[in-house]
């Protein structure tokens, strides 16, 4: 069977373009992504389309995935680290319905991983693309609500207001108040919002072997970090960045290096890996 005939056989839903988006929309996103990869960490505006998922629910990440996905790709979609989360399922269903691509829960086998709030625990490799869903694209949003102001600050690489914010936190509260979404600097240039991944995942962004694409549908921007790029959290030279700590290892698989979530509906309450597929695989040996 020719590749094209195979493609036709795969596409189940009628009335939709392959990968849902029309060609013009895909072109819009791809052009923005190319620019984003060339200027790591820079927020590239694009004409974000209205999608069948609400704004704030992954419309940006979805547009990115739909614009880059190919028939031979293998897709993994997670939310909070879980493939079974309702948001992950809804997004995955839409992508599969309009492309017929293979899916997996094993992060090592996926060529595209669309994620909300986590990076999979598995070590990832070259050739993989992670698509992050972004709620707030601008790390300077806490400093000023106006894009007209923050755009100029980025253009001048004037991040003094953000450093001041950090200083005030440490001086008056004892520690930076950033918990998740810790601002990071890309190759000493643009400061970027890494999406609400926990601090635990921030070190994974530095010199990563994968391509990181960030899509913000409501804010109509995409940004990107190519593989093997230096990405460092904003920290004072003399106050190192710290990650979350848990009192126990995972109650199910014993891992002490993963990001955990508390389960209070069992007696006694316990901590388990938030990366459900990773944990399950460890348990099955």
């Amino acid at each position: 069977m020719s590749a094209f005939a195979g493609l036709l056989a795969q596409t189940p839903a009628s009335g939709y373009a392959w990968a849902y988006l029309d060609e013009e929309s895909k072109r819009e996103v791809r052009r923005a992504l190319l620019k984003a990869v060339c200027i790591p960490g820079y927020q590239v505006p694009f004409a974000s389309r209205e999608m069948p998922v609400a704004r704030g629910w992954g419309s940006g990440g979805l547009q990115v995935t739909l614009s880059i996905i190919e028939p031979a790709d293998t897709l993994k979609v997670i939310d909070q680290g879980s493939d079974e989360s309702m948001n992950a399922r809804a997004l995955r269903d839409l992508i599969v319905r309009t492309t017929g691509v293979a899916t997996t829960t094993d992060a090592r086998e996926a060529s595209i991983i669309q994620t909300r709030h986590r990076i999979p625990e598995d070590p990832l490799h070259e050739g993989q693309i992670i698509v992050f869903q972004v709620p707030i694209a601008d790390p300077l949003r806490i400093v000023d609500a106006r894009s007209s102001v923050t755009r100029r600050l980025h253009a001048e690489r004037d991040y003094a207001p953000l450093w001041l914010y950090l200083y005030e936190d440490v001086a008056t509260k004892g520690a930076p108040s950033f918990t998740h979404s810790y601002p990071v600097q890309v190759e000493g240039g643009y400061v970027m919002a890494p999406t609400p991944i926990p601090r635990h995942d921030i070190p994974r962004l530095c010199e990563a072997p994968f391509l990181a694409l960030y899509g913000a549908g409501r804010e109509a921007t995409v940004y990107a970090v190519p593989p093997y790029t230096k990405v460092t959290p904003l920290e004072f030279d003399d106050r190192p960045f710290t990650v979350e700590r848990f009192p126990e290892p995972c109650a199910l698989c014993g891992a002490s290096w993963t990001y955990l979530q508390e389960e209070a509906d069992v007696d006694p309450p316990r901590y388990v890996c938030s990366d459900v597929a990773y944990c399950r695989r460890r348990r099955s040996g």
Partner: protein
Amino acid sequence: MTPVLALHDVTVRYPAGNYGCREISFDVFPGEVLGIVGESGSGKSTVLACANLDLVPTEGSVEILGRDVSRTRGAERRKLRAQALGIVYQTPQQGLDLAVTAGGNIAERMFGAGHRSYRVVRERARSLHAAMELPCDRFDVAVRTFSGGMRQRVQLAKALATSPPLLLLDEPTSGLDVSVQAKTLDLIRRIQRDHGLAMVIVSHDLAVIRMLADRVIVMREGRIVERGLTDQILGDPQHPYSQLLVASQLT
């Protein structure tokens, strides 16, 4: 010797046709204090805005340490201001973020200049805070709670944070109580001497000028009408307008 600040025939003309200032020229050398006097509307604030690179002159040029900087903008201007200029505004709100602590206001300038060590920045900010005779238990308190005089001191500390060679002051004591004015002027004189700063002080108050300035230029309706040593101008003014000013204030 290169002047720290030099204005050459600076003219600012607004789109409506009126002038902010006309053909202003002067030099300020290291360690020297220049006073600019005039009534409101004389154009002295416009001149200061040009020196601070807030305004681009319609004609003429502004030089800092021998370099023409009239048209710098963006990141370059920010860097220049961090390295070469300190400014104290007439109203503290213009120069400070009232919601931020005193230490934070001072520290921000250092972050802008590229400092990244919390301890080092904080210690320097603290020593400046103390040098301005601000109470140390207010170092981590938001400036909103400070009195007018204290806010001016925070502005001074902030201006000095990156050790610039030039300090610009716009009516530094107007709006302060008389007793506080004297203390603030004392402080400004002391830091000028201790750091060997070049200063430009704009004021309508001749007492301030007499106390701080080595030389004076008198402005009226956008132009310089007289210039000279402070003692000369205040003791023996030649231009009728200068005579009027002096007579109305210093007798």
